[in-house]
C-alpha cells in the first residue's frame, strides 16, 4: 500500500486529502480528509490516472498580433499537458471565432477536443 498527501483542487476549499492505494488499482483507493464527493474522485484519479485541462492560445492568421484562447475538453492525461501545449504552436484559426468552435478533434490522440474560448469579431 502506498500513501499520498494531496491538496484537492476540485474547488477553492483546498481540502488536504490522504490517499491510500495500491499502484494502478482503482478499487484499492481509500480517500480521507475530503469534505465532498469531488474530493474522493480527485484523490482517486490523482493516484491512478491524473488529468488536467490545458488552456492556451493559437494564432489568428487574419488578425495581426492577436491570438485566441483555447481549452481541451474533456480533461487530458497529465503527462500529455506539455505535448499538447507544444502542439498549440503549430495551430492557427481565422477570425471571427466563437466560443465552442472546434480547432482540432481528438488532439494528439487524447480523445479530447480543442475548443475556442473567446469570441473575436
Amino acid at each position: 500500500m502506498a500513501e499520498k498527501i494531496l491538496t484537492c483542487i476540485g474547488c477553492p476549499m483546498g481540502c488536504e486529502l490522504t490517499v491510500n492505494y495500491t499502484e494502478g488499482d482503482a478499487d484499492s483507493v481509500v480517500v480521507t480528509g475530503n469534505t465532498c464527493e469531488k474530493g474522493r474522485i480527485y484523490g482517486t484519479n490523482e493516484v491512478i490516472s491524473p488529468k488536467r485541462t490545458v488552456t492556451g492560445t493559437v494564432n489568428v492568421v487574419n488578425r495581426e498580433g492577436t491570438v485566441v484562447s483555447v481549452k481541451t475538453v474533456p480533461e487530458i492525461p497529465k503527462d500529455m499537458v506539455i505535448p499538447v501545449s507544444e502542439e498549440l504552436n503549430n495551430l492557427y484559426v481565422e477570425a471571427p471565432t466563437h466560443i465552442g468552435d472546434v480547432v482540432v478533434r481528438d488532439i494528439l490522440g487524447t480523445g479530447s477536443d480543442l475548443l475556442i474560448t473567446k469570441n473575436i469579431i
Partner: protein
Amino acid sequence: MTKDIVIIGGGPAGLAAAVAARDAGAKEILVIERDEILGGILNQCIHNGFGLHTFKEELTGPEYASRFIKQVEERRDGIDTLLKTIVIDVRAEGDTKTVTCMSKEQGIFTVDCKSVILAMGCRERPRGALNIPGLRPAGVYSAGTAQRIVNIEGRLPGKNVVILGSGDIGLIMARRMTLEGAKVHAVLELMPYSGGLKRNIVQCLNDFDIPLRLSTTVIDIGGRERLEYVVTAEVDKNLKPIPGTEEKIECDTLLLSCGLLPENELTEAMGVKINPKTGGAEVDESFETSISGVFSCGNVLHVHDLVDFVSEEAKEAGKRAAAYVLNTVPARSTNEIRLVPGAGVRYTIPVSIRKERLEDLLTIRFRVTDVYKDPEICVYFDDKCIRRQKKKIVAPGEMEQVILRRQDICAEENIKEIKIQLE
C-alpha cells in the same frame, strides 16, 4: 446626457451590477468602459476555474465574461454601454451625480445621473512601490502585464523567469510561461505563507516542479539593457534580509505579483470615505458608500480571490442602486450598527448596517490577518457571543464569510456593534 444609473467599469463587477439593476426595474443604465471590449481583466485570464459557484461549471475567463456580456445584450432595452471612454471625474451635489468622461470620438462630455456604481477594479502594485534596489533594465514586468502580452498579443516576454510574489496571478503565470516554453526558476514569497489559492499552488507549481521559496525576496536586480540576474535572500521574522543567504539567479525576466490595489482615485476625489485596510470605500449593507446613491462593488471595493464572489457582490450592489433610484428603500437613518474586525480579522465588508434596510440574509465578508489552524470564527453582538464556527484552517489569501439572519439581528434590541473575531 441623463441616466438613472451610471456604472464605471465594464468588467465582471460592472456587468453583473448592470444586469441586476435592470432586473430590479431600473430603466436608464449606462456602463462606461475604457477598453475596446467589455469583460475587463477576464479577457486575459484564459485559464479555467471560473464560474464554479455562479454557473456550477468550470469556465475560462473569456467564457465567464461572455455569459455576462450576453446577459447585458439581452437587456439592451435598459442598458447602454460606452466603450473606449474613460471617466475622469465624478461629482455628487445633492441628489444629482455628474460623471465627466472623455473619449476620442466625443471629447470631454458629462453624464448626469441619480446613482453611480463604482466598479473600476484594481491594479497591480508596481516595482516603484516595492523598493527593490538595483538597476532598471528591461525585463521586469508586473505579472498581469506579462499575462496580457502572452495571452492577448501572443508574444513571450522572456525565457528565463523568476517570479516575485505568490499571488494568484504570479502562480498562474508560472504555469503559463512554462507551457509556452520558458523556464521558471522559482517563485519567491516574502511572507512565510503564499498569498495565492491552494489549488493554484498545486496546479501551477507542484505539477511542473517549480519551487516556491517562502520568506524569500529579491534584494538586487542586475543588467544594463536587459535583465541579467536577480539576487535573492531569505528574510527574518521582521522581513529583513538575512546576511549570508544571498543567491544569484541568472534570468532575463522578473515578474512581480506583489498584491493588488483597488483603483480608487475617482472615489477619493469625490470625497467618499475610504477604509485604509482595504483601500476601498467604506460601505454599508447595501454596498452604499458614505455618499448616498454612490455604490461600490468588486475589486475596487476590496480585492477578491474569486470572480464568482465579485459577481455576487455586484449583483447585490446593482439591485440596491435600482432600489435607490426607484425610491423603494428606506433612507439611511442614524441608528446604525457598526461591524468591527476583532482579533485575527483584518477587515469586514460591510462596515455598518441598518436593521430596516437588511434583507433576509446578511453576508459579511472578511479576511484574516495570518494563517491560523483550527480557529473558531466567533460572532459577537456587543459583548454576547452568538455564534462559534470551527474551521480547519484560515489564511489571508482566502476570503472568509459569515452569513447572519435578519431575524437574529432584529431580535436584539439595542445592538451597537457586531464583532467578528478568531479565537
